[in-house]
């Protein structure tokens, strides 16, 4: 069994209440941080812990904190990004729903560190029932003196609010999130200035993912030294992985970074293997945006090393033979899955979610959806395959925010690894007109599939 910090007490009845959460040691980090540590000490501690942004980008959290403009005399803000919308990702929802106080505890310590007197949790509107759970927990925290004026008798005061979004993936991009929190369309901002200098209401702001903030109490409690003992190199600590698709046990798992992918998929402690006794064909291992990998490259790197769930090992081989750890949205496909159809759903998703600000993304995502739709439905041409590659290339790197890249990478990688499957769709239009075509007759040769 790997170490668990975030989900250690997830099955304890009543853990969503402050009373039970405290019985299990909850809010200890608030006491320790506010009474025995200076904000600068905490920044150093979080830097030393090697905690990296758990939303997907993996940027070092302590370093991000250190960019906050301290010379400004404007108020500072901490905003938690709970706009979890990356297909395949549902870990933040699980954590907030089951253990809301761990996020609140992290918000208090992080706000103290950053000198924020007001903090917001921006949660996607569809998670309205989770918002209610958070608000209830926040009320409890106010009543117990963990929020409000002079927390635990110190000089530090904090107000914490939950703000709902209203259905827009783009608001997970931090500057779009800030626009949305200001009551506007979620159009990402041009950077610089970065939020650390001019964020919410043009004030110095830090935006962090739910899981990143929820990991801070552990770092304070056990020390950074102990935290980064777990994991490998610059992939330290534990990570929540949301597993979905064709596996026996979909769900949210906390893993120690460094766990082999093969163990994650086949161990009964995690995914429990491929469902229905079928074989593994491919996986999108870090949320819909990351490159898809066929079974062989998923389990082993191109050099033949076991693929590990770390930022570095997942990326081994670059985009040619590797992928990214991303958000930890782990989508598994068995032999009956159609790579083209799955990709078409992703392309439709990105087209729907593009904010429309940059033409390469606005137009390109539409074209990719359209071309993929016709290939998948038996109306494609051979030249469509290279057309897709071309459109993806023209989006990548040419937009204000990473949504364009996120839309381009899945297309480029699917064609890189599964070009024959696209060609099959063009060659046999009558066969693919049945939406369940590969359930009737799996496409990939046995040799390329992996048995459990």
């Amino acid at each position, binding site marked *: 069994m790997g170490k668990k910090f975030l989900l250690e007490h997830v099955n304890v009845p009543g853990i969503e209440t402050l009373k039970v959460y405290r019985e299990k040691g909850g809010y200890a980090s608030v006491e320790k941080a506010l009474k025995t540590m200076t904000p600068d000490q905490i920044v150093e501690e979080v830097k030393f812990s090697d905690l990296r942004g758990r939303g997907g980008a993996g940027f070092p959290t302590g370093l991000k904190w250190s960019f906050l403009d301290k010379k400004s005399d404007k*108020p500072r803000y901490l905003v938690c990004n709970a706009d*979890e*919308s*990356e*297909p*395949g*990702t*549902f870990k933040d*929802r699980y954590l907030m729903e089951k253990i809301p106080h761990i996020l609140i505890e992290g918000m208090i310590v992080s706000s103290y560190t950053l000198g924020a007197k*007001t903090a*917001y949790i921006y949660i*996607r*509107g*569809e*998670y*309205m*029932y989770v918002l*209610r759970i958070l608000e209830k927990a926040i009320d409890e925290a106010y009543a117990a003196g963990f929020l409000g004026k002079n927390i635990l008798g110190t000089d530090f005061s904090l*107000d914490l*609010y939950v*703000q*709902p*979004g*209203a*259905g*827009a*993936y783009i608001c997970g991009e931090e500057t779009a999130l800030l626009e*949305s*929190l*200001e*009551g*506007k*369309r*979620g159009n990402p901002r041009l950077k610089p200035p970065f939020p650390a200098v001019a964020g919410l*209401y043009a004030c110095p702001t830090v935006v962090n993912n739910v899981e990143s903030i929820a990991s801070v109490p552990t770092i304070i409690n056990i020390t950074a030294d102990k935290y980064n003992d777990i994991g490998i190199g610059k992939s330290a600590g534990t990570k929540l992985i*949301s*597993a*979905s*698709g*064709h596996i026996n046990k*979909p*769900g*949210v798992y906390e893993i120690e970074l460094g766990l082999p992918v093969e163990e994650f998929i086949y161990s009964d402690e995690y995914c429990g293997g491929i469902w229905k006794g079928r074989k593994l064909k491919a996986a*999108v291992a870090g949320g*819909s945006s990351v490159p898809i990998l066929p079974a062989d490259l998923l389990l082993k790197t191109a050099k033949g090393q076991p693929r590990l769930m770390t930022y570095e090992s997942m990326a081994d081989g670059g985009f040619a033979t590797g992928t990214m750890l991303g958000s930890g*949205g782990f*989508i598994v*496909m068995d032999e009956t*899955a159609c790579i083209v*159809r*799955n990709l078409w*759903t*992703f392309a*439709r*998703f990105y087209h*729907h*979610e593009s*904010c429309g600000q940059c033409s390469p993304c606005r137009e390109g995502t539409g074209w990719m959806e359209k071309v993929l739709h016709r290939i998948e439905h038996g109306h494609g041409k051979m030249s469509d395959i290279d057309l897709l590659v071309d459109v993806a290339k023209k989006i990548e790197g040419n937009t204000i925010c990473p949504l364009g890249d996120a839309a381009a990478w899945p297309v480029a990688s699917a064609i890189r690894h599964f070009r024959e499957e696209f060609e099959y769709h063009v060659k046999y239009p009558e066969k693919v007109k049945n*939406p369940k075509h590969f359930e009737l007759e799996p496409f990939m040769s046995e040799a390329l599939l992996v048995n459990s």
Partner: protein
Amino acid sequence: MEVKFSNETLALVNKIIKRYPEGKQKSALLPVLHLAQSEFDGWLSTPVMDYVASILSIKPIEVYEVASFYSMYNLEPVGKCLIEVCQTGPCWLRGSDDIVEHLEKKLGIKNGETTSDGMFTLKTVECLGSCGTAPMLQCGADYYENLTNDKVDTLLDKWRTENKRSSYMK
């Protein structure tokens, strides 16, 4: 009909506005639009949006541009029960297409349409963050997960009997 929030909702709106610094009441726009949609029959008509603009002391266009950007705001009337079925990759892998097909058959409508009695609107949506419990649908604030055709039938019966308007705000 005069467009006006109930006193209870107005109190809530004033409480929400206090979450933001002085002069930043526009920040309340998204939560207030959710309240408006819930209070005024599940959609945002132009008079409703104008009313929200007046409450927040912003221009109507500032409301229209936001209401049209976010997918949870309905700019046209919808059925009493808005059934939103997730159809993105992970849900599709677990059979969301079959659920949509079943709903279309049972309700006698296509995706995007409303039943003639005004009871149900069927809408496919993109990833709702429920991939591990797919296939799933959202109706109001509630998630219904690990769906089967039988479960869908039971839900439809329940909603018909309850005959209540679905709302994200409950």
